[in-house]
């Protein structure tokens, strides 16, 4: 049976990470399995964790009274879920709901923040892994906000 360091080693997030750092952050991680409909975090709740998705898909949603939940992003296997643990006040901005059977590595955000504070090199490794997908999501969010799909008649 694979231990958490093995699972982590096979995730794209850990690519290029040295064994020492990998073992260090694995100490803040655990393996989780979510059924369809399970929530990984809820809007407004404490953001005390983030996830590396190994299999499955998670919808990021916000609830609109009278209209229900609206999803604006699907996070899939190989991707990172959750950035609110990085910045005060460590509060989840949106709901995150598994839309299919999902396996993930869950990190204790407070534990990992402590290790990053203690060793800035670890913090920099985390930043290098979080910033690119967050910037790409920001770029995509801008395109979605523009709503350009209805701008043409081909």
């Amino acid at each position, binding site marked *: 049976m694979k231990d958490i360091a093995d699972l982590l080693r096979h995730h794209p997030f850990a690519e290029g990470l040295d064994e020492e750092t990998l073992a260090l952050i694995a100490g803040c991680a655990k393996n989780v399995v979510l059924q369809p409909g399970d929530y990984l975090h809820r809007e407004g709740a404490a953001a005390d964790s983030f996830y590396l998705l190994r299999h499955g*898909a998670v*919808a*990021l*949603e916000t609830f609109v009274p009278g*209209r*229900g*939940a*609206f*999803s*604006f*992003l*699907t996070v*899939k296997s190989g991707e990172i879920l959750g950035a609110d643990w990085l910045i005060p006040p460590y509060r989840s901005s949106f709901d995150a709901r598994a*839309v*299919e059977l999902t396996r993930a590595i869950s990190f204790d955000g407070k534990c990992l923040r402590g290790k990053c504070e203690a060793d800035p090199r670890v913090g920099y490794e985390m930043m290098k892994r979080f910033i690119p997908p967050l910037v*790409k999501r920001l*770029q*995509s*969010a801008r*395109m*979605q906000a*523009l*709503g*350009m*799909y*209805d*701008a*043409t*008649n*081909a």
Partner: protein
Amino acid sequence: MPQTLKACTPPPNPMAPSMTRLTRFIRESADVFTFDLAPERATPFAPGQFNMLYAFGVGEIPISISGAADAPDRLTHTIRAVGPVSAALGRLKAGDQVGLRGPFGVGWPVEEAKGFDVLLIGGGIGLAPLRPAIYWLLRHRAAYGRVGVLYGARTPDDLIFVSELEEWRRTPDFQLRVAVERAGPDWTGDVGYVTPLLSKLRYDPGDAIAMICGPEVMIRATALALEDAGIADSRIFVSMERNMKCAIGHCGHCQFGPLFICKDGPVHRYDRVRDLLAYREL
């Protein structure tokens, strides 16, 4: 001996529409519809070409052909009702007449793509001009490497060709990913912008050709993402949209730098238009 004047037929006037009859009307979404036209005679076309459709008494607009190129006696067009002409076309019903000129322009490089992996990326109604290329690839599947289609739309209700999307999803050796910008809880597919889905397709970037159709801002973003993935800009093809009037390169309405979208396009090789796309005046 006096010469006999041979009776000669003047060449067909490219500005004169021929009459077609609408044979089938399909409502795709709230503002998008598809109809089939039966032309007076078979009208062969290449995937990616367009016709000028004339709503009598209202006006004429360029619309890409969205049907199969192997059925030249049936011309299918998919249209979003955004202006007076497209709205008038959307009010037609089976049996009504539509004026037609075409087909015009340069289409998708389906012959050039033989032997390559092929990626087709459509945004919004941009899937419609790609559909003839998709039909072509499916019909000649053995001639191509891996084939992948990405399609982005606003919401699940805005998806077009829904039954065919399901069919393509089930087609072996054919990759389809659909993303909508927002969705309710019933939608279990991808939500987000379409370009990040490129990483979910299997293809060899050094041996792939990509075809993009959609709003220009999406074309630019997608072409950059394809380049980042390793596809050469000379192997990326984009379908451009401009204000076309004559469709034969005379009037200049669709001039795009040294190019005329109507006759040099609408499909252009990206490396030939990428610098022009940076000019806001064009």
